């Protein structure tokens, strides 16, 4: 039982609106918008949370109210014309059916967007100051722009009300137009919108007054804002409290949704979306300070990943609603599980940031550990029982194997899983050894517990052999044997060791170390950090344009920050040509990828990160005897049909995860989920 859980399950009434509990999901941009509308995929994603018991789900992070704040960059929602209203109606009906409430975020992003998409208008801001993150130089807003945008907000809120949404918030966080006006770092105006804080608050007041005039005082309108921008020339905590007090005192806002930080550059962005390197709820003190000063309810989201922290935040009075946005991406049924006394079944967000990192490179939000999120139309969050129970043997207890065992056992199949290590988790156990990446271990921990709970026979410390597999007389064999690190094919590659050797402790390098990274992922960066913390002199070399190039925007800045702090030398644009020993040291030949200029290093160790190659011996030996030749029917799996079952006695054989090709955790889980849900 979670302490103070009942505090989370108290309803909250704002004006006439009663939200059934204190757990919410904040507006965000999962990249599911289509043509600027929240269509089926988007709605199903939120409906799953509503089914899962959430009190309030807010969608449409940065939904735009004007054409010069385009919806295109993150596949977002445009509320700038009436065509969105029918989608809102469908959406709100869908959410209300399950007893939850639905709100949207309305905003004008000002300079924090792109000019080169959709409508090709220049961005606008109080003053023409460039934002590093969006890379735009905005046009200074003229009075006519201000009047147009204020009117845009008013029309947008009318559309929300007509669409049956329960309310909305306007965004004055992350550096949108609202807080661009507030902040002297962006607002250098000398007119009635610039100068004193009173003047800088004017734009927002005009926006809210226009919205109120349009929909009346009863409609719930809130505001999202930072509690402290945490940047040198940004708005301070005192400024933000003053703004919150003024807006709420005027009766303009019905709730204040507080976060910490800003997002104008890479590191600010990473801090405002704290990953697993941060403690839980790192900025809870900010809403708490504002709550002391205002009479309206206060909401807050920022790495509240577990219900115990959420319950503490509410019960101690820091906030009125606690947002668990990423926590719901990991497990949309979080509240229901709490209510049903199944809190142990909650798949807890580990803070990998996989969901959000995908959005900022134009992808869709997917959860590193829950392959059903965002795929509700095809992937189940609750596994249905199969009509015909089968015997399923899973080889390998990494994420792919554990997911296969979990899902197959939930289907009612008799599942045996072989894992030669005594601890399930596979490569995740290695990755989790690297400093702040420890939280990754939560993924196999949950999968393991669920597979065991569903009745799978998990034989840890037991290596699978052909004989042992056949002795089970399986109907299905799933090979999830994962991969092993590749040392590459450069001359003298055998003199290198892998990042695995370092993290598992097989080799404990000392002295100078050159780490060559071909992947650009967490692996090399976190290994470099580990080595540097152990006292090694580390140079990380990559053929990419920068170190950690493939790491997402909420994680890469944290890696770089740590590597800089530790004095790790970062050398991009270099290929590794050759390694050869000289005395008891190693010479590494590097070549610039652009100029072909060669350099040499003399080091004590060379470590390479070149991804993994499949462990496929068992698969190969079983393949000929299987009824399907080890092949997944790709048409069937994409269409969501069960795999065809060829005639004849024997077993069907499938490979999942890195046993097919080295990819990532999500890929392994998705391989297994989509295969086993129809098994």
């Amino acid at each position, binding site marked *: 039982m979670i302490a103070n859980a009942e505090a989370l*399950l108290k*309803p909250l009434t704002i004006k006439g609106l009663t939200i059934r509990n204190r757990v919410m999901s904040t507006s965000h941009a999962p990249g599911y918008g289509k043509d600027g509308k929240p269509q089926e995929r988007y709605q199903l994603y939120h409906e799953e949370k509503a089914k899962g*018991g959430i009190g309030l789900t807010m969608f449409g992070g940065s939904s735009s109210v004007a054409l010069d704040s385009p919806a295109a960059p993150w596949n977002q929602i445009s509320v700038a014309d009436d065509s969105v209203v029918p989608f809102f109606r469908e959406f709100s009906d869908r959410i209300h059916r*399950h007893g939850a409430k639905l709100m949207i975020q309305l905003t004008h992003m000002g300079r924090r967007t792109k000019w080169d998409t959709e409508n090709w208008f220049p961005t606008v801001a109080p003053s023409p100051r460039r934002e590093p993150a969006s890379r735009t130089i905005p046009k200074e807003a003229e009075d006519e722009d201000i009047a147009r945008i204020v009117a845009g907000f008013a029309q947008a809120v009318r559309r929300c009300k007509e669409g049956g949404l329960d309310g909305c918030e306007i965004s004055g966080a992350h550096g949108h137009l609202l807080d661009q006006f507030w902040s002297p770092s962006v607002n250098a105006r000398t007119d009635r919108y610039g100068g004193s804080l009173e003047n800088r608050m004017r734009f927002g007041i005009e926006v809210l007054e226009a919205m109120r005039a349009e929909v009346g005082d009863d409609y719930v309108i809130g505001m999202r804002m930072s509690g402290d921008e945490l940047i040198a020339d940004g708005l301070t905590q005192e400024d933000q409290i003053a703004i919150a007090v003024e807006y709420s005192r005027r009766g303009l806002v019905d709730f204040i949704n507080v976060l910490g930080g800003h997002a104008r550059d890479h590191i600010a962005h990473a801090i405002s979306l704290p990953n697993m390197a941060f403690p839980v709820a790192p900025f809870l003190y900010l809403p708490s300070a504002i709550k002391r000063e205002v009479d309206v309810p206060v909401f807050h989201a920022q790495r509240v990943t577990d219900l115990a922290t959420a319950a503490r935040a509410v019960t101690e009075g820091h906030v009125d609603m606690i947002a668990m946005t990423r926590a719901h991406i990991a497990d949309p049924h979080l509240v229901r599980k709490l*209510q049903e*006394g199944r809190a142990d079944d909650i798949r807890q967000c580990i803070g990998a940031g996989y969901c959000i990192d995908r959005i900022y490179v134009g992808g869709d939000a997917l959860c590193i550990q829950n392959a059903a999120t965002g795929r509700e139309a095809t992937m189940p969050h609750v596994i249905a029982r199969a009509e015909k129970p089968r015997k399923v043997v899973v080889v390998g207890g990494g994420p792919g194997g554990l997911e296969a065992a979990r899902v197959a056992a939930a289907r009612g199949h008799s599942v045996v899983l072989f894992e030669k290590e005594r601890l399930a988790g596979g490569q995740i156990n290695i990755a989790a050894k690297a400093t702040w990446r420890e939280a990754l271990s939560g993924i196999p921990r949950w999968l393991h517990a669920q597979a065991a709970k569903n009745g799978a026979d998990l034989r840890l410390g037991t290596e699978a052999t052909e004989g042992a597999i056949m002795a089970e007389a399986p109907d299905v064999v799933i090979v999830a044997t994962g991969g092993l690190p590749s040392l590459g094919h450069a001359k003298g590659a055998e003199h290198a060791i892998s990042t695995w050797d370092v993290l598992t402790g097989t080799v404990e390098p000392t002295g100078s170390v050159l780490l060559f990274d071909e992947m650009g992922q967490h692996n090399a960066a976190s290994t470099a950090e580990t080595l540097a913390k152990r006292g090694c002199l580390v140079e990380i070399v990559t053929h990419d344009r920068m170190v950690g190039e493939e790491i997402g925007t909420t994680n890469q800045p944290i890696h770089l920050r740590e590597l800089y702090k530790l004095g790790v030398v970062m050398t991009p644009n270099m290929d590794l040509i050759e390694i050869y020993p000289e005395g008891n040291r190693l010479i590494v030949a590097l070549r610039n990828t652009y100029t072909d200029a060669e350099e040499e290093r003399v080091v004590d160790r060379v470590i390479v990160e070149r991804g993994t190659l499949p462990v496929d011996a068992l698969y190969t030996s079983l393949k000929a005897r299987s009824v399907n030749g080890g092949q997944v029917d790709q048409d069937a799996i994409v269409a969501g049909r069960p795999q065809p079952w060829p005639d004849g006695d024997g077993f069907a054989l499938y490979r999942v995860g890195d046993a097919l090709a080295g990819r990532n955790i999500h890929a392994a889980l998705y391989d297994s989920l989509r295969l086993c849900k129809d098994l």
Partner: protein
Amino acid sequence: MSATVALALVVWLSLIAAAILILNRARLWTVGQPVPVDWASGFKALPRRYLVDVHHIVARDRQASRMHMLVAGGLVAGSALAALGIVPPLGHARFYWALVALIFAIMLAGGFLVGRRRYPVKPPRLSGGTFQRLPFLLTGYALGAFLVALSAAIGPLPALGWAGLVLAAVGGFGLALQLGQGPMRHAVTGALHLVAHPRPGRFEGKRETALAPLNLNEPKLGIETPADFGWNRLLSFDACIQCGRCEVACPAFAAGQPLNPKKLIQDLAAALAPGNDAAYAGRGYPNAPDVAGVGSPHGAIIGADAMIHPDTLWSCTTCRACVEECPMTIEHVDAIMGLRRFQTLERGAVPEKAELPLSDLRGADEPGGRALARRTDFAAGMDLPVLSEDGETDVLLWLGEGAYDLRVGRTLRALVKLLTLAGVDFAVLGAKERDTGDLARRLGDEATFQRLARDNIATLGRHRFRRILTADPHVLHALRNEYPAFGGSYEVIHHTAFLDELVAAGRLKLAAAPIAAGASVTYHDPCYLGRYNGETEAPRRLLDRLGLARVEMERHGRRSMCCGGGGGAPVSDIPGERRIPDIRMAQARATGAKIVAVACPTCTGMLEGVTGERPEVLDVAELLLRAVEGAA
């Protein structure tokens, strides 16, 4: 003078001695409070009360029943016939004496059974002391009388006759002398108690379990001394035969808490004399703090310097298992409640942890001090109709205290969902629902109970509804059985019975397949539903409809064992050696069932608090909802 005449004299003299002793004892009862007794109907009903009601209880122990039938039947019939032996024509009739001999032979057989029950090893629930002499007196009397009768039937064999007479005289007088203090007292007091029983309704098929209201204008509230009991209550304590059935049934005793209902009754009887418990030779109160152990008719019963320690009083869960098992139909719980009322109302001496809930009940109408409006929080997001001032509903759903609890909220949500699915016209009182006062009443705070009862009755009087539905048997008992004394009479139905009606009427469609294939369920009867209200069948019927394999715990139905949660015991929190719910859960585990079905929020909480591997605890409503949702 023949031996037969002498035997008749022995019988007569014994009877006279017995009468003197019992009258002497009966004089003590007169210190008790006057209670109107319907003597005529009591006497008229005696044979039925004894032969049907008492026998029904006694017969649960087959051996004891056989023993008692033979020995008591033989003693009464044989002695009656032998007493008539002074009538001349009978005195010489061989056939007559043959009959007498036969009857005493039967009694003799019974006497041997009495002996076998106690020798060579006395079961711990039976008291020792004078009770250990009983088989010898009974067999001596029976054998002696048998020999006298036999000598007259086949004789004359004077030597045998006179030898028998000596034996019969020793046994007979010995038994007679036990009338005042010893085991034989129950024969007379038991019969008198049946006649003057304080709850005659229980012999008329009623579950007469409501506590009698206390007149709060009395100069003294509750029971302090033996003299404060009604006289027939004092009589009832004297009826105890110390068989220990209550002791075996008592959950507090089993948990090693300082309560033993048998010892309690004996202490109450001993205090009347006045006296101490020196003569008591049964098991005591487990782990009880020391007390002086003396009492007198006008002296305090409870206290370290009195007969009984307060911890004994507060260990009771009011489960009525002792009452249910008592072959002498003694009302232990009434006695405990009377004593508690004095402790709470006159001395303010409630257990420390009970002070806060009682004060919250007084100040906030709710034992957790929570806002009444928050009672419906559990259903936020669900369609839960609240009855408006002028509204009307068919079924008024009384939520009870469980609504504030996370776990019970789940049960209630299941219930609300089921009501909605079945299209039941229902509503709740919302913030107008106060606590029923059950906890206050069981903790002896009759004033708070009565105030809450009156307030609730006033609220209910302002609304129109046909019947009240509740998932809490404690609420059910208060509203159904205890509110009528304050002018509120309602048709109250428990959710298990109501849901059973809905399923029977086809208003809820069930899945064809069982909820979980192969899952077996054992049903734990809540005391306030089963024993207090006699409802043991509806929940079982409902479970059977779900297609689950139902297995019974050894103690079930009206003889079920308490979860430990009643009577304010969880807030009194008197330490013991084990926890009652652990004991009960072990019984559930022993059935091999995967699910313990419950029908009471208190039971749910107590049983779910059991740690370690155990069956899942699910309310009947939750199980039904699973079956209904499985059908959807």
